[in-house]
């Protein structure tokens, strides 16, 4: 596949996404995006002692949204919540070995989906996290990255 828009790692994660699917009784759930933008991402977390024990995602979105979800969920599995909140879309892109510029928003979406799930968890349990400061789950990443 010469001249691919996507590198092999993106394709691999897209074809065989990690942590994809349903989770029974999650401790936290977060959904972001809207079909208007063509991308919806849903994150489920199992949290024990401030640690993300398990994570699953569902995505209605393009290949890079799925690949981003796949690596982003890998990256936060086993981490503390504060650590997970530090995962940025830049790191997701790095981990994927790069994304075409018009697909950067997909990585933003996975970062936001994780934060949204933790935001919901914090609200429910009346917790505060440094990493959530200034975070607004209603923020639409598409506003920034589309031409």
């Amino acid at each position, binding site marked *: 596949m010469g001249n691919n828009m996507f590198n092999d790692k993106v*394709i691999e994660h897209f074809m065989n996404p990690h942590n994809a699917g349903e989770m029974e009784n999650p401790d936290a759930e977060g959904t972001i995006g809207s079909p208007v933008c*063509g991308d919806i991402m849903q994150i489920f977390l199992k949290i024990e002692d401030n640690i993300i024990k398990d994570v699953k995602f*569902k995505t209605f979105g*393009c*290949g890079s949204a*799925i690949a981003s979800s796949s690596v982003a969920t890998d990256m936060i599995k086993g981490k503390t919540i504060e650590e997970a909140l530090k995962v940025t879309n830049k790191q997701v892109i790095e981990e994927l070995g790069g994304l075409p510029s018009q697909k950067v928003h997909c990585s933003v979406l996975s970062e936001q989906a994780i934060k949204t799930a933790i935001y919901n968890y914090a609200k429910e349990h009346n917790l505060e996290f440094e990493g959530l400061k200034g975070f607004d789950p209603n923020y639409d990443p598409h506003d920034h990255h589309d031409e």
Partner: protein
Amino acid sequence: MREVYLDYSATTPVKKEVLDAMLPYFTQEFGNPSSLYRKGRESRAALEKARKQVADLIGANDREIFFTSGGTESDNWAVKGVAFANKSKGNHIITTKIEHHALLHTCEYLEENGFEVTYLDVDKYGKIDLNDFENAIRDTTILVSIIFANNEIGTIQPIKEIGEITRKRGIIFHTDAVQALGNVDINVNEMNIDLLSMSAHKIYGPKGIGALYVNRKVKLPNFMHGGAQEYKRRAGTENVTGIIGFGKAAELAKESLHEHIKKVTDLRNYFIQSVMEKIDEVTLNGHPTDRLPGNINMTFAYVEGETILLYLDVHGISASSGSACSSSSFQASHVLQAIGIPLENALSSIRFTVGDFTTKEDLDYVVETLMVITDKYRSISPFYKKKG
């Protein structure tokens, strides 16, 4: 890996016979057709032969065919030309909501320049309503431009009936026949068409060459100013090889029109039936029968279109989300919106277009791949709830 090309509506390969016809004119008979010497006359003769071949495909006279750089230029020329030439008579244009961007954006440009445009609605199959159309006509209507067959969903409009109305009312009628050409029987005289846009690369000819049919009774100002080419109607050194290729492609298209329609319709129906049988929750968009022979547009609920396309691509299959021009920004198409498809479904819709080199084995492979895709990505879709 098997390679399956199912995007014939985006563009077609150049047929071998077409390329063979073009080849001598690159390096050997390369003369400028406006030149008087032998090399120029050879080019001119070939060019005039091609004009006849293109004219024959739509039942026109060859002096009514003007070569352009493609369907887009033909659309721009026709619509801007008629509009500006008839400004004193009126400023109203009627078109549809499901035109190609070449037409829509041209109309938007005209709206910025003082024209009023009515965009006709279409029904759930993508057809305009003839009563709506007649009611939309005003005293100031100077142009009707309606796409012959839609590029995304393939729906064919009642062109002959439209032509009867415009002729009766004395309004100029343009149709974008870029997709219809070579796929539908076209006769400009029987259909009362005044202007008709064509593009070679949709009928196994080269890219970058098209034509505009201009009925001899229509006064159309020039769009491209300069030399006296194309009987002084379209300036610029003629794309001789392109024109020859277009001519040859038109000749082949005419010769095998009915055979082509039959073959491609069969393939299309085979594919639709096969997908419907093997995959749940799939809908066909567009008209069940009045559609381009090669067009299949389907919604695979719960799976985003780009995901489908990427997975197909990885498996050597080329398909698209609608029009090629917008495929680098995946957005719900204006055509699918116009036929009332809900947004998520629009985003889950794929266009497959089959053509002369498609085989049933190709289609079997695509259906198998689609089964894997729907299985795999529906299971991780936040919308999907498994039945049963």
